[in-house]
C-alpha cells in the first residue's frame, strides 16, 4: 500500500560462506551489495515479477569435494539419449560447478583456461552476478584466436545434490572471440536434487567475430537456476543466442548485451515451456551504444498447469546510436486456466533516426485453427501438438546453427511428450 522502497530478503546463507580474506575487490563489492540490498523481492523494478524470497530460507551449502559419479554419468547419458547429442562433439563438463577434466574432451582450435581463484571476476551491477562473484570458485575461459573457426562444442553443467543437502554452485565462464573468429556453443545444464545453479557468462566478440550460443536448461524440477550473460559485441560482429528453458522450479535467464561498435548484431531469442508450478523469467537489456547496429528478439512462452512465465525485454538506444534497427516480439500461449504470463517489453530511445518496434500477444490456442485441423481429421490432442509446435517454430527456426537447432527441436518434442505422460 505505501511506496517505501522495499528492502530485499536476507542473503545471509550466502554471505556466511564469504570469508572476505582473498582481497578481491569485485568480491568485496558484491558482498557489500548483497548485504545492503539483499536478494530482490518483487518490489524492485528489475525483479518486478520474480521474487527470490524463497531462497532466503534455504541453508545452501558449497559443493562437496566429491560428487556422486554414478549419478553424474547417468544424467549425462540421459541427456545424450534424450536430445540425441553428437557423442563425438568436443565438450567441457562441469560437475557441481567445478571443471571435470576426466569427463571433458576439449576441442582443438581454442584455448581453455580455468578460472583462477577470483582473479578473472568482472564486476557487474546486477544481483545474480553479484551472488556469483561472491562465491565463484571455478569456471572456464574459452578463447578463440583471431580468424579461427573453432566449430561446435558443448558446455555441460551437471549438478548432483546429496540427499537432504541443498547446494549452490556459482560457475563463472568467459567466451572470448578474436577478430573474425567463430564458435558455436551448446550450453546444457542438467541436475538432480535440491540446488541453485548460478552461472555467469561473460562474452566478448571482437570485430567480425561470430558466436552462436544455444542454451538448453533442463535442471531438476526442484532446482533453481539463476543465470546471467553479459555480452559485448564489436564492429560487424554478432552474438546469436537462443535460450530454451524447460527445467527448474524457479529460473531466470538474464542477458545484458551491448553493441559497442558499428554493424554489430545481437539476437536474444528464447522459449520457455513450463508446467506444474514452475516460474521462469527471461530478462534482457540490449544496449545500442553505437550507430548502425541491429538487434532481434523473439521470445515465446508456452504455459500449462499453474506455471508462470515472465518476459522483461528492454532495448536501450543511446544518443549516438543513430540508424539503429531494433525489433522485439514476445508471445505467450496459455494452455491452462491457471497459467500466468507477465511481460514487460520496453523501449528506451534517445536517438531519432532509428527504427524500433515491439509486439506482444497473449492468448489461448486459436479455436478456428483447431477446428480447421479437426475438420481435416486431426484429433484434438494431436491438433494441439501441431499448433503448439508451429507456435514455437518461428522462434526455434531463428537459431543459426542447424545442428544446434535440431537439438532444440528435439528438446521441444521431449517436453511435449513428457508433459502428456
Amino acid at each position, binding site marked *: 500500500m505505501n511506496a517505501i522502497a522495499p528492502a530485499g530478503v536476507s542473503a545471509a546463507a550466502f554471505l556466511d560462506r564469504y570469508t572476505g580474506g582473498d582481497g578481491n575487490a569485485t568480491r568485496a563489492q558484491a558482498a557489500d551489495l548483497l548485504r545492503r540490498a539483499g536478494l530482490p523481492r518483487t518490489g524492485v523494478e528489475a525483479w518486478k515479477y520474480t521474487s527470490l524470497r524463497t531462497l532466503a530460507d534455504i541453508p545452501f551449502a558449497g559443493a562437496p569435494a566429491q560428487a556422486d559419479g554414478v549419478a553424474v554419468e547417468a544424467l549425462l547419458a540421459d541427456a545424450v539419449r534424450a536430445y540425441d547429442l553428437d557423442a563425438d562433439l568436443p565438450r567441457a563438463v562441469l560437475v557441481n560447478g567445478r571443471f571435470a577434466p576426466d569427463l571433458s574432451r576439449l576441442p582443438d582450435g581454442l584455448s581453455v583456461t580455468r578460472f583462477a581463484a577470483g582473479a578473472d571476476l568482472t564486476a557487474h551491477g546486477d544481483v545474480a552476478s553479484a551472488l556469483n562473484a561472491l562465491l565463484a570458485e571455478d569456471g572456464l575461459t574459452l578463447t578463440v584466436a583471431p580468424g579461427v573457426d573453432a566449430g561446435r562444442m558443448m558446455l555441460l553443467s551437471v549438478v548432483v545434490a546429496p540427499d537432504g543437502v541443498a547446494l549452490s554452485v556459482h560457475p563463472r565462464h568467459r567466451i572470448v572471440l578474436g577478430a573474425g573468429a567463430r564458435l558455436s556453443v551448446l550450453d546444457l545444464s542438467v541436475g538432480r536434487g535440491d540446488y541453485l545453479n548460478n552461472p555467469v557468462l561473460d562474452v566478448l566478440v571482437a570485430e567480425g567475430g561470430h558466436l552462436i550460443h544455444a542454451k538448453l536448461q533442463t535442471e531438476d524440477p526442484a532446482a533453481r537456476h539463476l543465470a546471467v550473460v553479459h555480452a559485448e559485441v564489436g564492429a560487424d560482429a554478432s552474438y546469436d543466442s537462443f535460450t530454451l528453458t524447460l527445467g527448474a522450479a524457479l529460473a531466470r535467464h538474464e542477458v545484458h548485451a551491448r553493441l559497442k561498435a558499428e554493424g554489430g548484431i545481437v539476437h536474444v531469442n528464447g522459449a520457455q515451456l513450463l508446467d506444474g508450478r514452475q516460474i521462469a523469467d527471461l530478462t534482457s537489456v540490449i544496449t545500442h551504444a553505437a550507430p548502425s547496429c541491429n538487434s532481434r528478439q523473439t521470445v515465446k512462452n508456452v504455459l500449462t498447469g499453474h506455471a508462470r512465465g515472465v518476459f522483461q525485454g528492454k532495448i536501450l538506444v543511446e544518443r549516438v546510436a543513430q540508424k539503429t534497427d531494433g525489433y522485439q516480439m514476445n508471445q505467450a500461449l496459455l494452455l491452462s*486456466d491457471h497459467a500466468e504470463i*507477465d511481460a514487460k517489453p520496453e523501449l528506451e530511445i534517445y536517438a*531519432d533516426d532509428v527504427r524500433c518496434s515491439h509486439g506482444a500477444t497473449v492468448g489461448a490456442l486459436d479455436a478456428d485453427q483447431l477446428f480447421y485441423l479437426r475438420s481435416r481429421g486431426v484429433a484434438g490432442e494431436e491438433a494441439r501438438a501441431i499448433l503448439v509446435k508451429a507456435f514455437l517454430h518461428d522462434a526455434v527456426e531463428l537459431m543459426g546453427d542447424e545442428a544446434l537447432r535440431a537439438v532444440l527441436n528435439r528438446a521441444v518434442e521431449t517436453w511435449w511428450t513428457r508433459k502428456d505422460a
Partner: protein
Amino acid sequence: MPAIAETRDAVESLGQSTYKWGFETEIEMDMAPKGLTEETIRLISHRKQEPEWLLEWRLKAFQAWQAMTEPTWAKVSHPPIDFQDAHYYAAPKKKAGPKSLEEVDPELLRTYEKLGIPLHEQALLAGVELPEGEVARPPVAVDAVFDSVSVVTTFRETLAKAGVIFCPISEAVREHPELVRRYLGSVVPVADNFYAALNSAVFTDGSFVYVPKGVRCPMELSTYFRINARNTGQFERTLIVVEDGASVSYLEGCTAPMRDENQLHAAVVELVAMDDASIKYSTVQNWYPGDEHGRGGIYNFVTKRGACRGDRSKISWTQVETGSAITWKYPSCILQGDGAVGEFYSVAVTNNHQQADTGTKMIHLGRNTRSTIIAKTISAGHSDSTYRGLVRMMPKAAGARNFTQCDSLLIGDQCGAHTVPYIESRNLSAKIEHEATTSKISEDQLFYCRQRGLSEEDAVGLIVNGFCKDVLKELPMEFAVEAQKLLQISLEGSVG
C-alpha cells in the same frame, strides 16, 4: 484563529508582487498560510463548512500520506518537492457565494474570457453576434475552478431539468452528502498512492456530476482549471457518477500563468459507470510547461481512474497532453462488469525540457471485457516522453480482449521516447495484442510537403496532426480544433 493574521499577510504580500508576464489576474485572494499540518486540513475543512465525516476522511488520508514516500519509478526527475513550502488553500475573496454570473468578480470573468471559456451562457443562448471569424459553438455547461475553488457553474437550470447534477464538489458535499459520501474514494481510495493521498487530505474543490438512470446528459459538461496564485498547489477532486443506462461527455481544460517557479497540481478524478452507462472524459492539458531552458512549469501529478461497475458499461479517456513541466498521469479503467469497455486515446507532446510519463491501466475483471489503448507520443527539443501502461487480465476475465498501439515520434536528436508496457494475463481465453513503434518524421513526407510549398514548420505540423489523427478524432469537435492548434504551438521552435 492565529492563521487569520498570516492569511492577511499572505494576501498583502501577494498584492505587492509585480508580475512580469501578463495573463495573471490581480485579484484579492484568501489564502491559507504556507505549510501542511493537521491544522491546515482543519482550516480547509472549516473554510468550506464541511461535515465532520469529511474532515475525518481527510485526516485519515493525511495520516496515510505522512507514512508514504514519493514514488520514484516514473522516468522523470525533479528536485525534491518541499510540501511545506506551498499554500494549500487559495480562493478569490468574496462576500458571499455568487448566486449568478452578475455576482462573480468581473476580473475573474475577464480571465476566463481571455482564455476563451464560454461562461456567458446567456449570450451564447441568445445567439448574440459573435466577433468576426468566431464560429458559434454548441452550448457547453462549464464549471470554472480558479485556484482552489469553483467560481461559477453555468447551465445549471437546464441540466437540473434533465435531472443531472453538475456543481462544485464542495457544494455537492452540502447538497447531496449521501451521494458524495457513497462514492468519494470508492474508486481511488484515500491511501491509493502518494499524490492521491495528498489530494484526499487537502482537496479544495472540483466538479461533481451525477447523471440519474436512463438520462442522456443534454449537453457536454466542462470544467476549466486555472492556477493563478503564486506558491499554491492545485488539488481538485472530480467525481462523476453515471447510473444505469445514462451517459455523459465531460471535457476538462487547464492553464496556468508563466512563472519561473514550479507549481504542483495533484488532482484526483473518479468515475463510476453502472449498467449500460457510458462516460466520455476528454482532457486538453495545457498547464504552463516552463520556458525553453526548463525553468518553471507545472508538476502535474494526477490520479484518474474509472470504475466500470455495471455490465456493458463504458469509460473512454481521451487526452491531449501538451503542457506541464512534468506529467505523471495514468487514467485507468477497472472493468468490473461483464462486457464492460475501456478506452484510452492519448497524445502526449513534449518539447524543450518537458518530461512526461503517462499511459493507462486496464484491469479486466469481468467476462468479455474489452479495452483499446492508442497512445501517440511526440518528443522534441531536450524532452523525454514515456508511455507506461498496464493491461491485466484477472482469472475471471474469460473472453476479455485488449488491443494496444503505442507510437512514438522523435523530432531532433536530443530528445527521448520510451515505451514501458506491462502485460499480465491469468486467463487462458483472454487475448492481448500490443504493438509499439518508434521512428522520426519521414524525410519523404517532409520533402513532399516542402515541395508543395509548405514551410518546414507547417509541414511538421501537418505530419504530426496526421500521426495523431486516431486520437484527435475521438475528441469532441470543438476540442479537436483546439488540440490541433495546441500541437502546432507546442512544437514551435523544434524544427530547423
